[in-house]
């Protein structure tokens, strides 16, 4: 099973509406599947719920998962109007800061449902700084307590935001899971950037069972046509002259010594003219009209 790494964000992607029955791949079920995975692993799970009610979120989880789930409810009363003291103090900002200042030992998974809601209520920079603080809070100043891992999962609805906030949040994330799919099969495109290593990309087809366990597929039943294989750029295509050689022509070409190639035979020939070889000579047959001047004007030159 795939283990979520620290600061994994998942997105729900809506395909362009071309078909009348456009399907939205919602990310909440994947989020819940990951939460269940974390809870069964022994982490304590804190959920900051903003978009759905607590009952709806807890629906479908088994009792032992639900017992490890701590739900911070921002959905019921986000602006604290009822003043009953149930709402989280300080609104979303206070809730996040409270999560940052958590001092309980043990591995923890924090799920944010959803980041889109938080982006609408908080400035993007504040959210980024808080997320950074959330995932790095295990660095204790004293070296006594062992470093506990904090996993942060965030759900973001990509189509609600411009490229800016999504890009900024992705740069903070250590793994980014984009959901898409074909008809009834869902795929997740995962970009995993470990620290100081080259990021890896992979696409995983999966489905989520009703009890929120994750089932990974090897290969989908109806595999979509793979994108056309990238052919080697062939510069000799589409030319108006023939660049291809037959075998005989190739042999003749290879055996040809080029004039400017200084092979060893040529070197020998120039250095030591063999007895059989005659150096080139000039034979001059004077014509009747030729003016043979015996006196060579170049004789005065003292070279």
């Amino acid at each position: 099973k795939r283990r979520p790494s620290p600061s994994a964000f998942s997105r729900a992607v809506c395909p362009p509406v071309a078909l009348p029955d456009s399907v939205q791949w919602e990310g909440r079920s994947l989020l819940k599947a990951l939460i269940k995975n974390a809870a069964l692993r022994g982490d304590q799970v804190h959920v900051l719920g903003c978009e759905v009610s607590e009952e709806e979120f807890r629906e479908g989880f088994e009792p032992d998962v639900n017992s490890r789930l701590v739900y911070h409810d921002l959905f019921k009363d986000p602006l604290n109007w009822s003043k009953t003291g149930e709402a989280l103090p300080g609104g979303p900002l206070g809730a996040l800061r409270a999560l940052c200042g958590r001092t309980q030992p043990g591995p923890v998974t924090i799920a944010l449902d959803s980041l889109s809601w938080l982006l609408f209520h908080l400035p993007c920079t504040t959210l980024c700084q808080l997320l950074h603080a959330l995932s790095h809070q295990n660095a204790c100043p004293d070296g006594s307590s062992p470093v506990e891992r904090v996993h942060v999962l965030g759900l973001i609805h990509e189509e609600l935001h411009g490229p800016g906030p999504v890009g900024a949040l992705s740069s903070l994330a250590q793994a980014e899971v984009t959901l898409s799919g074909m008809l009834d099969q869902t795929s997740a495109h995962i970009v995993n950037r470990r620290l100081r290593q080259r990021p890896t990309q992979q696409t995983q087809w999966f489905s989520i069972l009703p009890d929120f366990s994750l089932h990974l597929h090897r290969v989908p039943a109806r595999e979509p046509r793979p994108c056309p294989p990238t052919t080697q750029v062939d510069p000799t295509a589409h030319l108006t002259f023939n660049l291809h050689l037959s075998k005989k022509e190739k042999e003749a070409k290879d055996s040809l010594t080029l004039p400017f190639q200084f092979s060893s035979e040529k070197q020998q020939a120039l250095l030591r003219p063999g007895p059989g070889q005659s150096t080139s000579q000039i034979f001059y047959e004077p014509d009747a009209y030729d003016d043979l001047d015996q006196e060579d004007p170049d004789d005065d030159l003292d070279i």
Partner: protein
Amino acid sequence: MAATAPCGSGAEETGSEAAAGKPGGTSFQRKGPRAGGLDRGGSRLVSIAGTRPSVRNGQLLVSTGLPALDQLLGGGLAVGTVLLIEEDKYDIYSPLLFKYFLAEGIISGHTLLVASAKEDPADILQELPAPLLDNHCKKEFDEDSCNDKTPESNIEMKIAWRYQLLPKMQAGPVSSSRFGHYYDVSKRIPQELIEASKWYGFFLPEKLSSSLPAEPCYLTHGYLKLLQFIQSIIYEDGFDGTNPQKKQKNILRIGIQNLGSPLWGDDICCTENCDNNHNLTKFLYVLRGLLRNSLSACIITVPSHLIQNKAVIARVANLSDTVVGLESFMGSEKETNPLYKDYHGLIHIRKIPRLNNLTGDISDVKDLAFKLKRKLFTIEAYQNIKAKLTCENIIDNF
């Protein structure tokens, strides 16, 4: 004005003093490096460790840590200037250049100032690459290059053999170099070297411990604090010449990581038109003023691929002196392109400064690619392979 090589040469003479009646010889006087900067008078040559004057104009240069990059920048980074690195998309290679710069500072004995909003400066320093000593260098390079030799590269070109004579980037160590060292990326710098060096760290989450409400300020709070910090270090340690007790001059190397990212409190990466569009540009302007007045050099990495407003990117580049852009092939369609299969990305030298000069020192080679080998980060001029293939084919078949 950036500091020139502090060297006393007496009176400043103009070059061509055609004095008639000068007995014998030439009337042109040989000019030494201009006297100026912080050391006036005196005829002794003051040299700071890890620096050298530029051969073009006598500008004092420091090494960036990568001799190949030094060569492309005209010998090195001028003291008093800013080197801006535009980060690659997944931020893999720009931290490397950042660390090379800092490691070079430690080896040369310079003072370091490391500022980051993401990582603790102490952790950054722990991850610096280990220096390669001269006697081990040659062996490492040969080993590295042998591993990478593909069978195709062994085919020598028969006809277009002049391509092989193109100058390669300097990949091997220069003997007896006190300027520019080589590093092994697979190893960490020895702990004692870090402890022997002097460094200051600025980690933003620690400095902004109190949660202040966003007060209307002319600069983002984080930037303001960083500028104040830099100014205090420069003043206290006498890098700007105010402290006359300083016996030995030294260079301050400043490294600022991920400037402009939301972690610094700047939202130019989040929105296109925001009210505080000018935070980063104001910061760079003030920083440049601080640098010009002191013996320091600065490297900044900026995630320019995240900045939404193109005008801001252009302004940021204008305010920096040297701008180098990294473009990695990861995740782009160039990854599968056979032209680029030997390399990991392209490096663009976008701007070279003209300091005390009318022209910049622009290198002839424009197509540069980089590759991160196991131990080395190399920059090479990638020959345009497609053109080569086409030409070779055409010429060979006739």
